[in-house]
């Protein structure tokens, strides 16, 4: 666009009123705002922070913290080792080794023999949770994740399942009922071959 384009519209900043040009009424209004906050925190206990080790902050339900691997009603790992989460992960922090499911698990072909998440590599984007077709991986509200070494921060299957045990009461699984079977789902989507 050229500088003398007739369609070009020039917008002037709004003119300041006399009071605004003197600053003082505006400053007084600003002092009122901060004054309210000071009085609110000092005398009415309106601080929005919590005293951390003694009080625990409860994050919102969609907070994305440490991962957990969900268990089904038979206390088995829900994961079917489909690798969708590892594929979706932009940080490549999920490492799954799949194996054939034991014969006593008739509802699936595979299960994860090992499931490792590098919590230091993870960017907590929640893509794994979204990619998972069986709601097996979820991000919990645990935000105070610490460790003394890098090795400690690499979570294996046992640890991820123990996170589920620790958080399942406070945060029930986001989808209690198992999602509709794969057959029902594919019927609803128009196939490109049709």
């Amino acid at each position, binding site marked *: 666009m050229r500088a003398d384009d007739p369609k070009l519209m020039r917008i002037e900043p709004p003119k300041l009123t006399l009071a605004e040009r003197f600053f*003082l009424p505006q*400053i007084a209004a*600003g*002092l009122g*705002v*901060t*004054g309210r*906050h*000071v009085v*609110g*925190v*000092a005398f009415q206990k*309106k*601080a*929005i*922070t919590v*005293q951390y080790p003694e009080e625990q902050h409860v994050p919102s339900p969609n907070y994305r913290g440490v991962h957990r691997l969900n268990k089904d009603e038979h206390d088995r790992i829900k994961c079917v080792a489909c690798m969708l989460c590892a594929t979706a992960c932009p940080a490549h922090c999920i490492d799954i080794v799949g194996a054939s499911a034991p014969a006593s698990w008739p509802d699936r072909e595979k299960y994860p023999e090992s499931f490792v998440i590098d919590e230091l590599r993870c960017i907590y984007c929640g893509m794994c949770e979204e990619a998972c077709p069986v709601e097996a991986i979820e991000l919990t509200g645990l935000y105070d994740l610490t460790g003394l070494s890098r090795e400690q921060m690499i979570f294996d299957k046992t640890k991820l399942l123990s996170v589920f045990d620790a958080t399942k009461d406070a945060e029930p699984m986001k989808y209690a009922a198992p999602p509709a079977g794969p057959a029902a789902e594919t019927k609803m989507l128009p196939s490109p071959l049709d």
Partner: protein
Amino acid sequence: MLWVAIGIVLKILVVVSIALGTVAYLIYVERKVAAYAQDRVGPNRAGKELGIPFGLLQPLADGAKMVLKEDVIPGYVSRPLYMLAPVIAIVAAMIGFAVVPFGPVGPNQIMNFQIAPNINIGILYVFAIGSLAVYGIILAGWASNNKYAFLGALRSSAQLISYEIPLAMSILGMVLIAGSLDLNQIVNWQDRRVWGVFVQPIGFLLFLVSAFAETNRLPFDLPESEQELVGGYHTEYSAMKFGMFFLGEYLHVITVSYLTVILFFGGWDLPFVLDQNQAGFVSAVFKVMVLLFKVALMILFIMWVRWTLPRFRYDQLMDLAWKSLIPLALVNLVATAAIVQLIYSSR
């Protein structure tokens, strides 16, 4: 004669130690006010194990940290000036207290609450000392041999020189009305008539704005401006040398608050209750308390403003001084002089 000297030394010791202790707690108060303004709680842990509430031991912890930290002197600084700068900063801030009356002063009083009593150029002295503070800052910036520090120091010197003019002119009105440069005479005049803020409202506003600029406090803290200049003139300073700049800044805040209260809010005066003819111990203590209370309010106000207003842009800062404050101060001065000449002298 010897006793007078001992008395003065004692007064200096008392004033300096009280001022430094107050500064330590002012930093605590500042952090609390900052926290409250931002809906936080602020420091509240130090001293909890000893049963001391509200984190009141925080200043001690801060001081211990300042003293015990490693004192890094970068290899590229100009050492003599680098060492001298914080000393100038703190000394310039401290000797301003010499003429500040902390309570009633006069021949009828039991004691002169002033290190150098009845100096008839009190205000001139304060401003002379106040201008010295700029040496501390510009030496720090220059000796640090660091571009951020240097930019901070440049800004600071330009700012202090610009705001010195409206600062001095804004109080001249009060000086004309009271007819004296002696701070005690000004207080006594306000005690007889009314507080300065009522006869010199414009002078008061100009003084307040310029005083904020003189103390390098927000909204005029361009010399430091963390976001652009790292730390400004004290970027290269660590441990207690940095602490001395910090102390200097807060001592300036105390001095400016005392001056504001003495010039415009009647000093130790409490209308209808206290006046200059009262002598004796009780009234003296009462006056000191009243003055301290007013100064505390003033300091709180300065902190309150700090957490309300954002920093000025550099050209806006200069515009404000040269295009608004100085013309206003001139008009105020001429008008006051005319009124004093025409009305007071004819009586």
